[in-house]
C-alpha cells in the first residue's frame, strides 16, 4: 500500500489533475513549497512500494506526477526509485488514452533511476539487443511483444509494438532510443521490413538523421566510414 501517496492524494490532485484550474495548481504548488520549507520531502512520495492492487486507488495523473517528482534539481540527491515493473505494466494497461501512455512511458524512461542505468548507452552508434539492456520497464514488455509476434504473428502485438515504438521515438532521450533500437532488432528478420513500426521509422528517420537511423539499425548498407 502506498500510504504516503494515499494520504496526500487530495493535495497532489490539486497539482497533478489537468482539469483543475491554474489557480488551483498554483495554490497546490505553493502548499507543497510550504511543506518543503518545514522539512517534508515531497520527492519521497514516489510510489516505489506500490503494488498492482494499488492502481485503482489513485488517478493516473497522481501516479505520473509522483514518478516525475524524482526529477529534482541537480543539487538534490536522488532518493526515490522506480516501482516494480508489474505495477508499471498495470499502470500502462490502465491508461485508456495513448497520450496517457506516452506521458507515463516518458515519466518512466526519464526517471533518474532509468537515466542512470542507461547512461552507458548514451553515445552508442549501433543498436543493442533488448536482452543486453538494463532490466527497466518496458524492456521485458517489448521482448514479450516481439516474441509473441514471432510465434503468432498477431496483429494485436504488431499494433502494440508499433504504438510503443512510436512513443519511444517521440520521447527521444538516450534511454528511449536505445530501447527502440533494441525493439527493431528484436523484430523477426523475415517480416521486419513489412512491420508498420519499421516502415514508419524508415520514412521518418532515414535521409533526415543518418546517425539516428544507424542507431536504430535502419541503415541498409554498412557505414564505410564507421
Amino acid at each position, binding site marked *: 500500500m502506498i500510504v504516503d501517496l494515499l494520504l496526500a492524494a487530495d493535495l497532489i490532485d490539486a*497539482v*497533478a489533475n*489537468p482539469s483543475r*484550474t*491554474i*489557480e488551483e*495548481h*498554483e*495554490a497546490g*504548488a*505553493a*502548499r*507543497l*513549497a*510550504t511543506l*518543503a*520549507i*518545514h522539512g517534508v520531502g*515531497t*520527492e519521497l512520495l514516489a510510489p516505489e512500494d506500490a503494488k498492482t492492487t494499488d492502481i485503482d486507488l489513485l488517478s493516473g495523473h497522481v501516479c505520473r*506526477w509522483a514518478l*516525475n*517528482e*524524482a*526529477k*529534482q*534539481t*541537480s*543539487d*538534490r540527491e536522488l532518493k526515490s526509485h522506480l516501482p516494480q515493473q508489474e505495477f508499471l505494466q498495470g499502470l500502462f494497461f490502465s491508461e485508456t*488514452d*495513448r*497520450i*496517457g501512455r*506516452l*506521458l507515463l512511458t*516518458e515519466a518512466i524512461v*526519464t526517471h*533518474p533511476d532509468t*537515466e*542512470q542505468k542507461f*547512461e552507458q548507452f*548514451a*553515445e552508442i552508434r549501433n543498436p543493442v539487443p533488448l536482452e543486453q539492456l538494463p532490466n527497466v520497464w518496458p524492456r521485458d514488455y517489448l521482448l514479450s511483444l516481439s516474441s509473441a509476434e514471432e510465434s503468432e504473428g498477431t496483429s494485436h502485438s504488431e499494433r502494440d509494438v508499433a504504438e510503443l515504438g*512510436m*512513443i519511444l*521515438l*517521440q*520521447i*527521444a*532521450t*538516450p534511454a528511449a*532510443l536505445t530501447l527502440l533500437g533494441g525493439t527493431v532488432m528484436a523484430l523477426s528478420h523475415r517480416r521486419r521490413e513489412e512491420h508498420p513500426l519499421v516502415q*514508419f521509422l524508415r520514412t*521518418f528517420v532515414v535521409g*533526415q*538523421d543518418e546517425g*539516428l537511423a544507424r542507431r536504430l539499425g535502419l541503415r541498409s548498407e554498412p557505414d564505410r566510414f564507421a
Partner: protein
Amino acid sequence: MPYRLALVSPSLVNAIEDGISKVAASQFEPQWTAGGKKTDPWLVIKYIPTKYCRDFRPNIIPAGGPSPRLRISDSPGFTWGTGNYVVPLAYPVSTAIYGRAGVVATLDQNQTRRWRIFDARLPANQNLYVQWSIAQPAFRWLTLTCHANLANQFLRNAFREAFRIDCVVFHPDQRNAYYTKTNDDWMCISDWNRYNRLARGSSAVLQTPRLAILVSEEFTPIGADVRRRTMIGPLSAMPTNAALASAIRNAATSGTIVELTA
C-alpha cells in the same frame, strides 16, 4: 547525459538554434534591474496565494539558516510547460492575478548571462516552434487527443529540453485591465536535473525568495475566459511600473513588505 533529440531536419534545427543565439540575456538586464542601478541584483517576482506566503516573510526566515525555495510549476494549463513563471521587476504586478503575495527572487548573474533564451514574442520564432511541433512523429496523436493541455505541456517541455532552453519570454496570455497588460513580458524559467531534463520540485535557479509585496485585491476568472476580474478595485490610480519596481526593490533589499492598495 545528452539532451532529447529534436527529431526534425537539420535545417530546422539550425533555424531554431539561430533564433536562440540571437537573444542575449543582456537585453533583459534593464528589466531585471528595474527600480535600481545597473549594478544592482537581477530580480524577478512570482506571485503566490497569501495563505502560503508566510514562510517567505523576511523576518521569519532564520538568519544563516536554509532559505525557503519556490516550487517549480507543473500546471498543464501554463503555456510553456514545466517551469517557474515569473516577471522581471519591470512588470511588478503583471502576474498578481495568480496570487496576492509577491515573492521576489534573485537571478545569479553569471549563470543568467549564459542562458539560452527563446523569444516567443517574435512571430518568426513562433513559426519555428509550430514547424517543429508539426514535424514531431506523434503530432497527429498530440493534436487529436481530448487531453489538449497535457499534449501542449508535453510538446513545450520536449521542445525546451531538445534545445536546452533556459528561459522562454512571452507576452501574457491572461488579462486584467489594471494589472496585466498585453505587452508585458512574462518568463518561463527552467531548472535542470543532472540528466538534462526539466526538473520538478524546488527551484535552485530562483535564489533567496522573499515576500516583498502584498496586493490588496482579489482576482477571479470570468467564466472560462482568459481574463481575470478584480473583485475590489481599483480603489485609486495604479502607481507606475517604475515607481513600484523601485519600492519593491527597496523592500526586498531592506527586508520589508510593500502593501499595494491601488
